[in-house]
């Protein structure tokens, strides 16, 4: 009688662990799928391009390369301006994030703005060199994120 009762308990325990394991796996799949789906849903697109500048004493270097955002050579206290146009097929929140050691010098005419579909917006990227900047090369990557809105 005792042996039968113990066996029944063991079987019940095994079933419980099986169900718990299955529930755990379903939970993992659910969480992974949600993260995966939501990530693609939230960030609609993102574009990256290189940017660089050489800070000089008395040389102005013009670079009109269109595959990246090059500011050429800018003397101390000088200001360089480049332009880029962006558009989106869907309504998006646009966020521009510069990275690298060029970041302290660079600014954008607009950032964190809503871009309606079909609208072409021109963004001025301004690079200002302070008087106390160190002569040399600076570079980074400009990341433009388009969030679904």
């Amino acid at each position, binding site marked *: 009688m005792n042996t039968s009762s113990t066996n029944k308990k063991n079987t019940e325990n095994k079933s419980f662990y*099986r169900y718990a*394991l*299955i529930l755990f*796996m*379903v939970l*993992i*799949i659910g969480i*992974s*799928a949600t*993260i*995966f789906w939501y990530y*693609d849903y939230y960030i*609609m*697109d*993102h*574009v*990256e*391009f*290189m940017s660089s500048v050489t800070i000089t*004493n*008395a*040389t*102005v*270097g*013009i*670079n*009109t*390369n*269109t*595959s*990246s*955002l*090059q*500011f*050429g*050579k*800018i*003397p*101390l*206290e*000088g*200001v*360089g*301006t*480049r*332009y*880029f*146009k*962006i*558009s*989106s*097929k*869907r309504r*998006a929140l646009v966020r521009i994030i510069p990275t690298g050691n060029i970041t302290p010098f660079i600014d954008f005419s607009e950032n964190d703005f809503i871009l309606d579909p079909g609208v072409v917006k*021109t963004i001025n990227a301004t690079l200002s060199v302070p008087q106390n900047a160190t002569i040399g090369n600076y570079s980074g990557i400009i990341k*433009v994120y*388009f969030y679904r809105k």
Partner: protein
Amino acid sequence: MFQKNILFLLMMFCALASLTMIFYRNPSAPTITGMATSSGNVTLTVNSTSAIQFAVNSVNWGTGSVNASDVTHNYTCTLDTEGTTTGCINFTAVTQPLIIENNGNTNLSVSIYSNASATDFIGSGSTFQWKVLQNESGSCTTTPSPATYSPVNVSVSNATIICSNLGYTDSNDSLKLNLKVTIPLAVMSGPAGDRSATITVVGN
């Protein structure tokens, strides 16, 4: 035994599905692009225009005044970036013009304008001029202009084209911009202090 196998298969499926979810990216989703470009949803185009502003005080003549006893130079101080400091007291001679280079990989049309005229920059009766020459021979396939000192242009919409075709080969891609100012004695009766003007160079 059968139940064990089912459970094992289910576990394998769940584990594989989880790993797939973590590492797999939806191929229909927009892709990350390496350069300024367009993808299915968005377009980004970098404009082929570049503008650089620099302060004229980066031409460091230092601090000085007009020589009030120099009748030879008509009580006028003349400074330029070719070493001239006539009729002046204490200003430093500057022999280094500003160099304008083409750092890109296409020929450029280069134009310049100033944010201040001579009167705005220094005062009534003064002059503020520039001239442009080849820094490396053959850099500009046409003759750079103005080749002799001429008053600065303050028109943004009608900037002075100094070279319509500036090359990009490293050994032939630069111009020199010389600046010249004259300061009459009368200006010295005004308030002392720093004078500033900004010149903008536009390439496209």
